[in-house]
């Protein structure tokens, strides 16, 4: 066992009485079980098939990260001209909740919600009857085991409950800032009852911290005909480690659209576990990644078609420069009863440098016969002919490259249903390229 693993176990022993929901018997059992499972398995490493290309155990190594404290007073945001992610979603009329080191800063957050929408801290959510099944969501895949670490140590987060037919009037923006080099374990619980609708934005940024571990889990449950749009921007510090798992259960005719833009962190891993529980539901799990230097970014996605007549589409686009590494591991499972499934999965990577590497492992596991499934993976480089053609019309080389990279990523952005958010993502991708050009120039 690594020092990092041992450290997490000690943190649990030391702090469990102070963790939210400490008085709840079911949760106490749940946390203890989770800790036991974590203590047995340790941090995930490359010998596990689901972690074949990403070694979290090694990345955390012997770091003994204490729990990052909740600071008082002002938190200084990075300069928006250098870190455009700071300004993402700002022009959109939205509710904002600010988290510092994974803890809700209610003084920096203020919001008035419409009827039927209940937004609370994780601690309050854990006391609500709707939250327990979410915390107890089962993930069969090996990749899901790491959620146990979060379950044992989850300290803050939100609970969002939207009553039947109610609608979150404006997007809810969760802004996660890190200003301490410690570990944070955030759990967000989201339940949309029948026909409810919500849009959630997430931004993950450093605000003073350099080398930290952000561990996020979101459990989502969509009732019949509910619609959730989720857009996430991960732009953590260059030495940070970001781990995020999303579990989503979709009832009949519900719709999930989740998009993730990955720009930051030394090592990041986004996991999505989507399960169809009722017919006629739809899931879109998409993302765009742009990395440079020695960054490592991993997307892992399992879509489980457990019932008939559902459709899923997954598209991940990755741009890699320097000696960065990208990973896509995805699986579409079609269970024996899940006839008329429409499952699509695509990953495309663009390598801008000889030292960059992409690992892609898309899989289909189909047990039903009347289905439409397709998957594909491409890894390539910028088309030199295309660059010459653009330059022959007077477009300079950096602009030509930027046009082609933007065009490459655009299919992924196109999947984001929220137009203004989509424009922000496009701008961020463009500024990534501009900033990046300066660095390499």
């Amino acid at each position, binding site marked *: 066992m690594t020092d990092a693993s041992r450290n997490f176990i000690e943190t649990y022993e030391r702090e469990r009485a102070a963790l939210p929901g400490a008085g709840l018997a079911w949760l106490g059992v749940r946390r203890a079980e989770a800790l036991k499972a974590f203590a047995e398995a340790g941090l995930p490493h490359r010998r596990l098939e689901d972690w074949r290309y990403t070694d979290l155990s090694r990345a955390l190594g012997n770091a003994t990260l204490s729990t990052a404290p909740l600071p008082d007073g002002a938190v200084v945001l990075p300069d928006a001209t250098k870190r455009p992610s700071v300004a993402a979603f700002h022009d959109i009329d939205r509710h904002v909740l600010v988290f510092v080191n994974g803890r809700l800063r209610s003084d920096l957050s203020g919001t008035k919600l419409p009827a039927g929408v209940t937004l609370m801290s994780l601690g309050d959510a854990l006391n609500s009857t709707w939250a327990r099944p979410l915390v107890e969501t089962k993930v069969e895949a090996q990749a899901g085991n790491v959620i146990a670490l979060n379950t044992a140590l989850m300290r803050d987060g939100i609970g969002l409950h939207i009553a039947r037919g109610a609608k979150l009037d404006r997007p809810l923006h969760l802004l996660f800032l890190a200003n301490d080099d410690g570990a944070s374990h955030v759990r967000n619980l989201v339940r949309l009852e029948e026909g409810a609708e919500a849009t959630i934005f997430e931004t993950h940024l450093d605000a003073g911290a350099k080398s930290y571990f952000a561990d996020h889990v979101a459990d989502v449950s969509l009732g019949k005909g509910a619609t959730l749009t989720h857009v996430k921007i991960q732009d953590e510090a260059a030495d940070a480690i970001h781990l995020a798992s999303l579990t989503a259960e979709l009832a009949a005719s519900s719709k999930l659209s989740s998009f993730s833009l990955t720009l930051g962190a030394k090592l990041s891993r986004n996991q999505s576990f989507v399960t169809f529980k009722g017919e006629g539901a739809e899931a879109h799990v998409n993302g765009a990644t742009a990395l440079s230097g020695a960054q490592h970014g991993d997307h892992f996605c399992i879509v489980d078609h457990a019932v008939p007549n559902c459709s899923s589409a997954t598209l991940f686009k990755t741009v890699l420069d320097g000696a960065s590494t990208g990973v896509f591991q995805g699986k579409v499972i079609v269970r024996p009863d899940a006839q008329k499934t429409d499952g699509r999965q695509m990953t495309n990577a663009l390598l801008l440098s000889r030292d960059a590497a992409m690992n892609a492992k898309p899989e289909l596991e189909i047990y039903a016969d009347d289905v439409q499934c397709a998957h594909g993976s491409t890894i390539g480089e910028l088309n030199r002919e295309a660059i010459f053609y653009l330059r022959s019309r*007077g477009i300079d080389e950096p602009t030509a490259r930027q046009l082609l990279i933007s*065009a490459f990523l655009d299919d992924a952005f196109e999947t984001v249903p929220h137009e203004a958010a989509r424009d922000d993502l496009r701008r961020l991708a463009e500024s990534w390229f501009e900033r990046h050009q300066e660095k390499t120039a």
Partner: protein
Amino acid sequence: MLEIKNLHVAVDGKEILKGIDLTVEAGKVHAIMGPNGSGKSTLSYVLAGRDGYEVTEGSVTYKGRDLLAMNVDERAAAGVFLAFQYPIEIPGVTTMTFLRTALNAQRKARGEDELDAPRFLKLVREKSKPLNVTDDMLKRALNVGFSGGEKKRAEILQMALLEPSLAILDETDSGLDIDALKVVAEGVNTLRSPERAMVVITHYQRLLDYIVPDVIHVLSKGRIVRTGGKELAGELERTGYAEFAA
């Protein structure tokens, strides 16, 4: 306008152009004819500045400047335009975005104002109409799914918009039926002007019925073997390239 002296060009160590001398004055249209493999496309690419074409000897002067010392986009901004034989498909970049980026890049390089969206749109519409370039084509990704004729019309639209001083048309007639050829030729003829020089590269005399050149050169095995007036095209049509290929 353009002065090529003793130009030798090698590709992968193999000499393709073996001493080209060519002078093109403003206001003139020169045609370069020749059989396949004579070096016609090599000449057009080396003038546009494509990678992989090594100039081993000679010089190219354009408006008094050393063209070969300029990079690809500098040449374009200085007014050199190559209409490609096979225009490149660029998925994800709409024709409209591409045209605007190109035009504004050139204007910027020349120290002129960039055109805003409404002024640009008006200009594109005006130039598109005679070439039958529809709004639908402008909204589509550049050259992606365009027919042969659409691609060539899009090339001429770019030329009309960018208003180059020196236009090189590489086999612009290839893959066109007679109606499409007429539209393209009409577009090219509209752009003829006393300030502009054109080099029309073609295998067939057919294009020259519609774009009538001032001078015709015959290129064979990397050398200009004959130069004459427009009547040379008709002669070649009757005799073919046999005497030059031998």
